[in-house]
């Protein structure tokens, strides 16, 4: 471990005398590895202010897998980059809120402080392996530069470790691969390489931003299994960002659903699938074709498009597309509510944003009202069979 850990930026909950990694961890509340508190990101564009992330909070413990799920444009990528510190405040970017990693206030570190954490403690895997590797550098070099930077390995040691890493991510002939260039590898192989790079210094947190979206379906499962396998073997925490609920069902401990820059529902994975409360979550689930269902059936589609973040809808962000929307939804934004308040309330930590949560009498009533008038309060047409009762 580097002796010069940035002590000045430690969170207030840690004591100043602790310098080692383990000492700091013990001093930190709940043993959470990553705490995100009320994070906002706003971009000032020519057309106005885009509020890409709005008041997102979450916590992630050591070894835990948290899935962030949302459509494109929901702010999940911006959120991950802000968590890591890759997006910081500038002339046209406002950031707010705190990100604390292992007792270190990431959100207050400068570029130099962050670069000591990046690659070493927190690593990133990007969506498209075709573009995330440098086309003019050998694969071996792209792995060893991290090792040599953070672990002061000699060239020989770093090379040996690179070969070992490539083998551990399931690449054949790793000795040959280190001398190859990215264009000589397929997409799936390249993503294995980026994972090898990310894991080279055994980080404690991996941010995987849609790691399989750009890959063939058959390769997707392999990469996800590899990630899951490595994650549990190394005991690292993972923030798995995806738009695909199927991907995370068996591969995450918790899920946070994002919509229009906000978290609209968060729960343990099982609880979320058992009893989704937010209509958006429910809609996402209905958009997944059931394995046992009949063939050639029209899939449930969420009407409309994700909201324009330049001018987000008033009230509940999902109200223009929600089959249950009532007048209240159009004017008043629901806060994050605790599912335990609800009759037959959920166990554990489950919260959501909705005035008429799925599975309650209010929800049934709202739907009845909308079906009767043929449209929601926002004017979206509703048919009787739109949501299976």
């Amino acid at each position: 471990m580097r002796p010069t850990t940035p002590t000045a930026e430690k969170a207030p909950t840690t004591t100043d005398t602790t310098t080692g990694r383990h000492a700091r961890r013990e001093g930190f509340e709940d043993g959470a590895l990553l705490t995100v508190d009320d994070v906002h990101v706003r971009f000032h564009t020519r057309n106005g202010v885009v509020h890409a992330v709005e008041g997102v909070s979450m916590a992630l413990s050591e070894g835990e897998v948290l899935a962030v799920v949302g459509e494109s444009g929901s702010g999940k990528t911006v959120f991950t980059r802000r968590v890591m510190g890759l997006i910081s405040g500038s002339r046209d970017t406002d950031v707010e809120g705190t990100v604390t990693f292992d007792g270190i206030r990431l959100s207050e570190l400068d570029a130099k402080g962050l670069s000591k954490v990046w690659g070493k403690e927190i690593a990133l895997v990007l969506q498209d392996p075709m573009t995330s590797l440098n086309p003019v550098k050998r694969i071996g070099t792209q792995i060893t530069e991290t090792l040599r930077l953070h672990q002061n390995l000699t060239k020989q040691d770093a090379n040996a470790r690179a070969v070992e890493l490539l083998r551990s991510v399931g690449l054949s002939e790793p000795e040959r691969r280190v001398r190859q260039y990215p264009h000589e590898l397929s997409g799936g192989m390249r993503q294995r390489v980026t994972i090898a790079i990310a894991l080279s210094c055994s980080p404690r947190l991996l941010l995987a931003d849609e790691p399989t979206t750009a890959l063939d379906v058959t390769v997707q499962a392999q990469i996800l299994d590899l990630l899951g396998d490595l994650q549990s073997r190394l005991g690292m925490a993972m923030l798995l960002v995806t738009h695909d609920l199927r991907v995370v069902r068996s591969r995450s401990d918790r899920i946070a659903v994002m919509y229009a820059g906000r978290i609209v529902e968060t729960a343990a994975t099982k609880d979320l699938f058992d009893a989704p409360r937010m209509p958006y979550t429910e809609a996402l689930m209905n958009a997944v074709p059931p394995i046992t269902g009949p063939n050639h059936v029209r899939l449930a589609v969420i009407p409309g498009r994700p909201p324009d973040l330049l001018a987000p809808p008033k009230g509940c962000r999902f109200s223009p597309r929600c089959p249950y929307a009532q007048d209240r939804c159009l004017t008043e934004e629901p806060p994050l509510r605790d599912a335990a308040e609800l009759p037959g309330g959920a166990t554990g930590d489950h919260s959501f944003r909705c005035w008429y949560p799925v599975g309650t009498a209010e929800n049934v009533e709202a739907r009845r009202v909308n079906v009767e008038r043929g449209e929601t309060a926002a004017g979206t047409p509703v048919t009787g069979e739109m949501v299976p009762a």
Partner: protein
Amino acid sequence: MAEMTIATPPTTTAPPGETPGKAPRGGRRKAAVRRIRRRLVHLLIVLIAVTFLSFVVIDLLPGDAAVVVAGDNATPAQVAQVRIDLGLDRPMIVRYVDWLGGVVTGDLGRSFRTGQPVTEALAQRIPVTFELTIIAQVLALLIAVPLAIYSAYRPGRFVDRTSMTIGFGAAAMPQFVFGMVLIVVFAGGLTSILPATGYTSFFTDPLDNLRTIILPCLTLMIAEAAVYRQLLRSDMISTLQEDYILMARSKGLGPRTILLRHALRPSSFSLITLSGVNIGRLLGGTVIVETLFAIPGLGQMIVQAVFNRDYMLLQGGLLFVAVAYVVINMIIDLLYLVLDPRVRRDA
């Protein structure tokens, strides 16, 4: 003239999802040989086209070489004799084939005016122009590349804005005006620390050589440096948007490593291309600068040859220009192989 030989930046997209073939160990050498062979064929075609065209054009020019060479007071009989002596009485195509035969054996003929072998004249002029060209290019790149990198790193900030303003100013000024400004400042106007005209060979006096070429090189380089900076800056800015740069940042690499080790090489292809074109062009003669500073280079020689109707000398000069152009582009083409591994496979 030789547009068709300008090296083009590599088109570099390996088809996505393609399974890798065998690794091209030594593929680089094979690709290089293939490219050189293709370029040599190119070279032949270009040379024949260029020399033939210039023969035709010279033949069509008004004015008679024999009249010019024989002098003002020559009688028609003397002129006729000169014409026969120079071989100008033969048809153009015969003269061309004759000249071409000479080229193959390394004989470029003799100057109409001085009787000096053309190869000898070229041997005197080429090193001068070569020195000017190379030094000006190196200077331009030395100034432009660091400025471009820093400007791309902090676009719109002080360094970027200042160098852009100065660069555009310099590029917009005609070369001879800038040269005269330099003369006024350094050579006889405000100060007299450098000679305004003349040229001393490096082998005669290295220090004096340096003193005589500073101003011409500065004059040549300024506009190029401005264009290079602008080009590399914008390519670099778009490279810095790439995912692999984000990836490099997320590894914890510092800005210096990212800019120099990750972003510079993939951003430099158009700069290399343009630089190659410029070297080829400058080798063909830097007439204005050579005239302004009275430097006995190739450009001056070619212009004088045109005025004197010294067709043999002119023909030899043009031959060299064409060869230089194609050879430089061949070198650039090979540089792509070194710079971009993706080129090694297609081609």
